[in-house]
């Protein structure tokens, strides 16, 4: 056995040696197989969050809307991936055009120019592009929670296509492209490790604007809308938690110390958020609900998303705790104000994203602040970084809100955004898909 192992090891070594010639890119950068393997895994994990989100949202709506709601997530996997390969990657990670509104690089059209490119991190650029493309899928799908159960399928598809092009891609470019203006703001840029502003604030705020624009579901808030299947919601929340390791730890675009730091922060914040939520709920309502636990997981994960690369476990724990409390209050406030953010896209993603992006400055690890001070030429304080974060958050909120308003106005005018009263009463499944989701589950 041992001999056999040794021989196969030698053969593998030889194969690797000969193969090395082909893994060298044209510019001489070599593939780092360790990083590439983790980034491939992360890419798959982030995609897993989309069916996770479909189950999470699908379980929260009524029986007649379950397929329509799950399709909001699934159709994003189709349309956003196609758009990403066509122009999304170029608009997000090309060089500044139109004064830095978004990027452009003609080599990125249909990813033609990156067939053999290896990024400086040692990852084939295809992997980096696909990893980033998954974020462009899940972000518009998150918005759907705000206007669940009352949107025309066609209107939704047209809306997320336009939203992806004109809201997601520019924001992604500003925050993550090397020449994006938020990436370069202050000493070391606005901190958004994995998408606090780009993903969660953008989708949450857009959801709020959309929910206010289209109005409440029929009967809301007089008629209670009961979740069709909380079991499915729990499985979805679990998949989201698992997938989030790709989302956050993958955003290090490495497989090393920073990855480990991000992964740990993610786990700690999710757990702290979930526990805080059920404790608060127990005190306030007398019972610790399963949906409460799931909401706490999400609040914690959302808040740690921008912070995962810069906070230590203690900071992540406090962020998770604060996010759960503030999101809980935000949802109480929503119920008081009476608007219909049906599945709390704003209450969790918008509010949690703002909490994480702003409060992370108080928990940044010392080494990061030291490098920031060096980069700023001497000193860099928490409050200076707070200013940068506040600027990035305000810009993301304002941009997402204004553009979403305009886009919905246009979509509503030309395609129709809100479902007709009849379609809404019959349910999205019957009206737009000609199917029914649940077999004999009693209607709710």
């Amino acid at each position, binding site marked *: 056995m041992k001999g056999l192992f040794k021989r196969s090891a030698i053969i593998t070594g030889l194969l690797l040696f000969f193969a090395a010639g082909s893994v060298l890119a044209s510019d001489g950068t070599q593939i780092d197989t360790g990083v590439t393997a983790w980034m491939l895994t992360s890419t798959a994990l982030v995609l897993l969050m989309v069916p996770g989100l479909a189950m999470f949202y699908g379980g929260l709506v009524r029986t007649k809307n379950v397929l329509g709601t799950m399709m909001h997530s699934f159709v994003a996997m189709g349309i956003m991936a196609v758009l990403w390969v066509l122009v999304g990657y170029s608009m997000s990670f090309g060089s500044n055009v139109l004064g830095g509104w978004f990027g452009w690089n003609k080599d990125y059209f249909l990813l033609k120019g990156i067939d053999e490119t290896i990024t400086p991190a040692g990852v084939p650029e295809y992997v980096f592009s696909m990893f980033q493309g998954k974020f462009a899928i899940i972000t518009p799908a998150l918005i759907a929670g705000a206007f669940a159960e009352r949107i025309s399928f066609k209107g939704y598809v047209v809306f997320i296509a336009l939203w992806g092009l004109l809201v997601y891609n520019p924001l992604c470019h500003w925050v993550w492209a090397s020449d994006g203006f938020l990436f370069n703001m202050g000493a070391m840029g606005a901190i958004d490790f994995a998408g606090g502003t780009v993903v969660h604030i953008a989708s949450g705020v857009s959801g709020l604007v959309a929910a206010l624009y289209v109005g409440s579901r029929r009967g809301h808030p007089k008629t209670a809308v009961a979740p069709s299947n909380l079991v499915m919601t729990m499985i979805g929340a679990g998949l989201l938690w698992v997938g989030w390791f790709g989302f956050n730890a993958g955003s290090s675009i490495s497989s090393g110390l920073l990855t480990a730091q991000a992964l740990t922060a993610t786990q700690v914040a999710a757990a702290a958020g979930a526990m805080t939520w059920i404790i608060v709920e127990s005190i306030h309502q007398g019972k610790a609900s399963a949906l409460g636990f799931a909401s706490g997981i999400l609040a914690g994960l959302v808040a740690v998303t921008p912070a995962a690369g810069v906070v230590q476990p203690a900071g992540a724990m406090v962020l998770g705790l604060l996010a759960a409390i503030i999101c809980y209050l935000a949802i109480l406030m929503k119920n008081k104000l009476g608007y219909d953010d049906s599945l709390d896209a704003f209450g969790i993603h918008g509010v949690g994203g703002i909490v994480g992006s702003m409060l992370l400055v108080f928990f940044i690890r010392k080494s990061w602040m030291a490098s920031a001070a060096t980069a700023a030429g001497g000193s860099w304080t928490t409050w200076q970084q707070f200013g940068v974060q506040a600027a990035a958050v305000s810009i993301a909120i304002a941009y997402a809100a204004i553009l979403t308003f305009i886009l919905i106005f246009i979509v509503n005018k030309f395609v129709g955004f809100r479902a007709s009263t009849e379609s809404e009463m*019959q349910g999205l499944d019957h*009206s737009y898909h*000609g199917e029914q989701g649940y077999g*004999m589950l009693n*209607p709710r």
Partner: protein
Amino acid sequence: MKLITAIIRENKLDQVREALIDAEITRITVSRVSGHGQQYNEEIYRGARVIPNLIPKVRLEIAVNDDFVNTTVDTIIKSARTNSKGEVGDGKIFITPLEECIRIRTGERGGKAI
């Protein structure tokens, strides 16, 4: 007292329910059933139109005092019909005499327990 049992289209449930509530008939039981009728129901399954054997329907059970029977029936007919003229598959209403009605909480019997 009568027991009104209505078999209606699944996608008409909300219309019927809201119409009944407007007519102040709020005590109903709803369940999902499936069965055979005159209707051939087409569904889309992987791009093909198929006709399932059993067609899913919703059953409403409403116990009413005699003077509410007509209102209830009229409301259901009006709200459960497709395109106001009606189509095969809109469903049926059965009315059966109801011998007794008892409220479990108080033990009350008869019309006042409905």
